[in-house]
C-alpha cells in the first residue's frame, strides 16, 4: 500500500538504525527482550522519525529538527558522574531518595537504596532485563501500547537502563523517590532510558523525575506507570538543559478504579523538547490531574502532548498548562480527551494558556475532544496573548520597574498551574526557578 511507502531515510534515521544493528548484541536482556527490541526496531524502521505528515507530530517535525543522531552513550566516566552530583537540584531542599542515572546507566554509588520502606522495591532496569522478571514481562511495552509512535519504538529497541519500582498493596512510601537522569558525558550522545513503576492497590507514592544534560545530548526517555485501584500517585517531571538538547519523553500511565493520579511537568530548558503523555483510565471513579508549566526563551521548541483515554465511567480529569514564551521560542500544546461509549459521567476539563512576551514567539494550541458517550461533561479552553498592559501600568504606577512588573505578572500566570503540586516545598522550589528565570531575562 502507498501509505506504508516511506521516503529515503534521513541521515539521523540511518544512524539510529545502524546504531541498533551494531549494539543489539550488547544491549541488556535475554532472548525474550531481544525479540521485543527486534520487533520495535522493525516497526521504527517502517515508521521513521515522527514528522509533520503525522498529525500528532505536525508541529514538532523530528525529521526536520534532528539533523544528525548522536552515537549511543557509553558507560559513564568519573567526570560525568561527578557532574551528575549537581543534577536534580531544581527540586530545592525537598527530602527525597535519589536514584541516579548517568548517561542512561544506573549509578549505585550515587543512589540511595538504604532503608527501603516495607513494600517498596527499586531495581535497575538493565539488571532486571538481563535476569528476566515477571513484573517486567507482564508490563513492559504493555501499559499503554504506543501505536505508531516511532520514538517509543526506538526507545524499546535501544533502552539501556532505568528504574523498575514496585510498591506493594497498601504500602505508603513516605519519602518521595527522585529519579535523577543526568546526561553529563563529555561527548554529545544519544541516551535511551526506560522505567517501569507499578503501584499496587491502595499504595501511595510521590515520584519526581528530573532531567539534566550537558551540551549536545539527545535523550529519549520513557516511563510506564501502573496506578493500581485506589492508589494515590504524584508524578512530577522537571526538564532542564542546554539550548542544543533534544529531549523526547513518553509517559504511559494506566489508572485504576478510584485512584488519584497527579502529574506535573515543568520545562525550563532544552532546545527541542517533546513531553508526550498517554493516560488510560481503566477503572471507574478515578481523579486525574495533569498540569504543566513551561518557560521558553531563545529558539526553544517545547511540545506538550496529552492523550487521556476514558475507558471507564465516572472519572474526573483536569488539565492546566501554562506556557511563557520569550524571544523566538515556540510552544506547542496538544491535548486530546477520548471518552469511550460506556465511560458515562465523565467529567473532563482542559485549560491551556500561552503568554507571549515577544512578537517573535509562537504558540500552537490544539485541544481535541472525542466523545462517544452521551452523559458526560467535557470542556476545553485555550488562550494566548501578551501581558495585560493595563495591569502592567497599574504595577508600574506604584513604582515597580517594568521588568519586575512583568515578572510579577508572569509568576501569577504560571502560579495557577504550579499551585496544583501538593508538596509545598517543591512548589516553592519551582516558583523560585520561575523567579530565577525572570531575573536572567531582566539582566
Amino acid at each position, binding site marked *: 500500500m502507498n501509505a506504508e511507502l516511506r521516503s529515503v531515510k534521513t541521515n539521523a534515521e540511518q544512524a539510529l538504525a545502524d546504531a541498533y544493528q551494531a549494539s543489539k548484541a550488547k544491549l541488556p536482556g535475554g532472548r525474550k527482550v531481544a525479540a521485543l527490541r527486534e520487533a520495535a526496531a522493525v516497526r521504527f524502521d517502517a515508521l521513521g522519525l515522527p514528522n509533520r505528515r503525522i498529525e500528532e507530530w505536525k508541529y514538532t517535525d523530528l525529521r526536520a529538527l534532528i539533523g544528525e543522531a548522536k552515537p549511543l552513550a557509553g558507560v559513564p566516566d568519573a567526570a560525568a558522574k561527578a557532574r551528575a552530583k549537581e543534577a536534580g537540584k531544581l527540586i530545592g531542599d525537598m527530602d527525597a531518595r535519589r536514584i541516579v542515572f548517568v548517561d542512561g546507566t544506573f549509578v549505585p554509588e550515587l543512589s540511595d537504596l538504604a532503608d527501603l520502606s516495607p513494600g517498596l522495591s527499586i531495581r535497575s532496569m538493565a539488571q532486571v532485563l538481563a535476569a528476566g522478571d515477571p513484573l517486567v514481562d507482564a508490563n513492559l511495552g504493555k501499559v499503554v501500547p504506543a501505536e505508531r509512535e516511532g520514538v517509543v519504538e526506538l526507545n524499546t529497541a535501544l533502552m539501556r537502563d532505568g528504574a523498575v519500582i514496585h510498591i506493594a498493596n497498601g504500602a505508603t512510601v513516605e519519602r518521595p523517590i527522585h529519579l535523577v537522569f543526568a546526561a553529563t558525558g563529555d561527548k554529545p550522545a544519544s541516551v535511551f532510558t526506560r522505567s517501569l513503576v507499578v503501584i499496587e492497590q491502595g499504595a501511595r507514592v510521590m515520584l519526581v523525575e528530573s532531567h539534566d544534560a550537558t551540551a549536545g545530548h539527545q535523550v529519549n526517555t520513557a516511563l510506564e506507570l501502573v496506578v493500581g485501584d485506589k492508589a494515590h500517585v504524584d508524578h512530577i517531571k522537571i526538564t532542564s538543559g542546554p539550548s542544543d538538547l533534544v529531549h523526547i519523553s513518553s509517559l504511559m500511565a494506566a489508572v485504576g478504579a478510584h485512584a488519584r493520579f497527579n502529574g506535573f511537568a515543568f520545562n525550563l530548558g532544552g532546545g527541542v523538547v517533546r513531553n508526550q503523555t498517554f493516560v488510560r483510565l481503566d477503572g471507574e471513579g478515578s481523579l486525574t490531574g495533569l498540569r504543566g508549566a513551561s518557560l521558553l526563551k531563545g529558539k526553544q521548541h517545547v511540545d506538550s502532548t496529552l492523550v487521556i483515554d476514558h475507558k471507564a465511567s465516572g472519572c474526573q480529569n483536569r488539565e492546566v498548562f501554562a506556557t511563557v514564551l520569550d524571544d523566538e521560542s515556540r510552544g506547542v500544546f496538544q491535548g486530546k480527551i477520548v471518552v469511550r461509549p460506556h465511560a458515562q459521567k465523565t467529567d473532563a476539563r482542559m485549560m491551556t494558556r500561552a503568554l507571549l512576551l515577544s512578537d517573535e514567539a509562537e504558540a500552537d494550541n490544539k485541544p481535541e475532544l472525542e466523545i462517544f458517550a452521551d452523559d458526560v461533561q467535557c470542556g476545553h479552553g485555550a488562550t494566548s496573548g501578551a501581558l495585560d498592559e493595563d495591569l502592567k501600568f497599574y504595577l508600574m504606577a506604584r513604582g515597580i520597574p517594568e521588568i519586575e512588573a512583568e515578572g510579577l505578572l508572569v509568576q*501569577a500566570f504560571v502560579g495557577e498551574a504550579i499551585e496544583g503540586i501538593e508538596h509545598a516545598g517543591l512548589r516553592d522550589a519551582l516558583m523560585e526557578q520561575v523567579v530565577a528565570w525572570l531575573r536572567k531575562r531582566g539582566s
Partner: protein
Amino acid sequence: MLEVKNLHVTVDGKQILKGLDLAVNKGEVHAIMGPNGSGKSTLAYVMAGKPGYEATEGQILLDGDDVLAMQPDERAAKGLFLAFQYPLEIPGVATMTFLRTALNAQRKKRGEAELSTPEFLKLVREAAAKLEIDTDMLRRGVNVGFSGGEKKRNEILQMALLQPRLCVLDETDSGLDIDALKIVSDGVNRLRSPDRAMVVITHYQRLLDHIVPDVVHVLSAGRIVKTGGKELALELEASGYAQFQGEAALAS
C-alpha cells in the same frame, strides 16, 4: 510643587486636553471638577504616564522636573501617586507581595535601604487597621474578590504606605456608600501635610464635604475654565456645569 503648563493631550488620535494650566503648591489640596468627558481622567492618567495618553504639547513639572519624560515607575519613585478610579484586579499576585515590591522598589530607586519583613508587616498592619482593612484580605490576589469600597480603601492603603509627595485622586468617591466614603476621606485627610500636595478629581461635590479643598478648578472641554475657593464647589452643586460648557465652547 506641581506645575502643568499648556498641556495638550491626545488619546487614540483625539485631542482631549487643550492647553491646561495648573499650579499646586505643597501643603495645598486642589479639587478639579468638571462634567463627564471634560478630560478629568485623562489628566490623571497622563500625569501617571499611562501608555496611549500622548502629550503633544506642554509640560508637567514636579519640583521643576518634567515627568513626561519619565516612566510610570520613575514618576512614582519621585513621589507621584495616582489613586485609580477603577483599581485593577491582579489574580495570583498577593496584595502583600505587591505592596512590599512597590515599597522596596521605590526605596531602592531613592537610594534607601529595603525594609525588613517585620518592619514592613508592622507598617502594613497599622495602616490597614486605620482603614478598617482585614489583613487576611491582603493575602489574596490584589483586589480579587474585593467590593468596590474595599478596592478604594486598598488604594488609600497603598497611598499611606508609599507616602507620596503628590497624590492624585481620580473619582475616589465613585462607588462608595456614606460609611465607606467617611473611612476613605479620613484616610486621605490623615495624609494631608505641609509637605504634600493633593489633586482631587471629582464629578460631585459630596467628596469635598469630607476632603475640604483649598482651591477648586472647573475643567471643561480640556481646559481649566474657572478657579475659586471651596465655595465654588457648592456653587457648582447648585447651578450645574452647563454654564461652563458654554464658556468653553466660546473659548475654543
